[in-house]
């Protein structure tokens, strides 16, 4: 069994290399290298990491090729803003948009409205006050691969996240322009992606009308000073700051104002967490009660060093990371270099924006040779701290204190 798998991977590696060569010849996208056993893959849960370069993207860690699930390598998080070409990619369906003509593209507002709208890209840019906002986004399943026992789903490490500066129109301004009818309870959002089968559910996510009208959501048409990459939702993406990226509908094409709540697979079955305290459940007895996941839990993540790094004794180690929450504001990050026995406050960088991540750093001079477990934990202005242990069946909303094993050598 084990041998057969190895052989298969070897074969796959050969295929990968030949695909790479073929791609070089064509000067096109599917650049793939299997890096088995290279130091870069040490300490990562999958024993194979594949890299790929997609249109408008740099080399990213490829979880799957169709539809593409691409993860950002950690070193990009050493910057305040994550470059567009390195920003993670996650589509549910292979029928994602690959061509958009702005001359015909219209974003519709339909349903329980007085004036149904069909807004062009230029309408969105010119008829509504542009709002600039730096916001953090994160896949609901970011860091899923670290749950034990392991759960099915995209096996992300910590790179299904990013921080970007968006410009867009306020959602509430667009809804007001349409004029909501009495009895509206939800606004739901759909993009240009098409399900593969007639029977497959359209990817559509709702916000309550209170959240849509009262929150800070924008319809973003610009990301880090440029139009959005196609794979990140060109031409317009819903930005729901502080909430998981499953709500940030890409290539937004239709907003439906509903007088009855939307029920579909994405609302009723997927992207749900247990109602139990800390949203954690026993793997042997999963909680029968679940609710849709919404906002980001408070959390600190190491950016450098990376797992399994070899550090030199007595040499200064610059520990850096990011801390995120739902917008209340990160107030404290602590780091332990001795497996959680003692904790030291990290220095917090300036606040970038309300819904941005906050960067933090600390200097460490290891004096003992051998394995060290680094840990980091954050607390926010609402007093929310992190969990020592958690598990949920979907592998969502990870908020466990991160442990990072490094090796100090002479």
């Amino acid at each position: 069994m084990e041998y057969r798998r190895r052989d298969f991977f070897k074969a796959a590696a050969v295929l990968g290399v030949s695909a790479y060569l073929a791609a070089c010849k064509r000067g096109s996208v599917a650049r793939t290298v299997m890096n088995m056993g290279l130091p870069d893959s040490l300490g990562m849960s999958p024993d194979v990491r594949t890299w790929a370069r997609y249109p408008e993207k740099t080399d990213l860690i490829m979880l799957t090729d169709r539809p593409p699930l691409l993860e950002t390598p950690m070193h990009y998080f050493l910057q305040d803003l994550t470059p567009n070409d390195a920003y993670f990619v996650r589509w549910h369906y292979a029928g994602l948009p690959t061509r958009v003509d702005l001359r015909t593209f219209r974003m519709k507002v339909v349903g329980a409205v007085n004036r149904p709208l069909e807004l062009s890209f230029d309408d969105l840019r010119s008829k509504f006050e542009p709002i600039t906002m730096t916001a953090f986004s994160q896949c609901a399943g970011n860091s899923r691969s670290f749950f034990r026992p392991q759960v099915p789903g995209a096996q992300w490490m910590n790179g299904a996240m990013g921080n970007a500066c968006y410009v867009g129109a306020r959602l509430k301004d667009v809804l007001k322009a349409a004029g909501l009818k009495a009895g509206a309870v939800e606004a739901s959002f759909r993009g240009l992606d098409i399900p593969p089968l007639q029977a497959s559910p359209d990817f559509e996510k709702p916000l309550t009308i209170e959240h849509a009208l009262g929150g800070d959501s924008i319809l973003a048409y610009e990301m880090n000073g440029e139009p959005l990459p196609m794979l990140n939702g060109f031409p317009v993406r819903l930005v729901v700051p502080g909430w998981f990226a499953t709500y940030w509908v890409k290539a937004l094409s239709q907003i439906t104002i509903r007088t009855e709540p939307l029920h579909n697979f994405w609302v009723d079955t997927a992207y749900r967490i247990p109602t139990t305290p800390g949203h954690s459940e026993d793997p042997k007895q999963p909680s029968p009660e679940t609710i849709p996941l919404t906002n980001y839990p408070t959390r600190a993540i190491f950016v450098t060093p990376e797992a399994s790094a070899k550090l030199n004794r007595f040499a200064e180690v610059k520990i850096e990371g990011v801390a995120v929450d739902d917008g209340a504001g990160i107030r404290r990050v602590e780091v332990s270099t001795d497996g959680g026995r003692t904790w030291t406050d990290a220095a917090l960088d300036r606040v970038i924006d309300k819904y941005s991540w906050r960067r933090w750093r600390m200097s460490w001079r290891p004096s003992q040779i051998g394995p060290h477990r680094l840990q980091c934990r954050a607390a926010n202005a609402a007093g929310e701290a992190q969990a020592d242990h958690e598990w949920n069946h979907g592998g969502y909303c990870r908020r466990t204190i991160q442990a990072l094993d490094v090796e100090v050598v002479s």
Partner: protein
Amino acid sequence: MQTLRILASLVVAAVAILAYAIWGRAGSERTTATTETSPVISASRLTEVQPVKAIQLEYDPPGLPPGPGLDLFAAQCVVCHSPRYVLNQPIFPRKTWTAEVHKMVKAYGAPIDPSQEKEIVNYLVSWHGKDDPPAIRNPSSK
């Protein structure tokens, strides 16, 4: 002379304390916008946007190990998604693969009948799964 020396050191100490008050304390909260690793990407509303954006996706599916069920898997599963959806998963037990395949039918409407479901599960278990642990569990094990 002695007095001058004391006075000088007092002045030095005062400057040091003042410097700490201004720089050092603020240091922990201070902006690091000046860090070399943080280039500012300016957001501009004046971006010229081409009227048509088009990309061409080329996929890179992995090879599939031979075995009973390969054809069915290729026809019924790969029609919607890459086999990497399997490769990216841990080596799950049969029970998990059974649930996953059934989810494709129930949630996504894949037209797979129950006997085909079984064949697909067998195929997945043959190269990326394992059989379920025995039903009798040791209650002391975690």
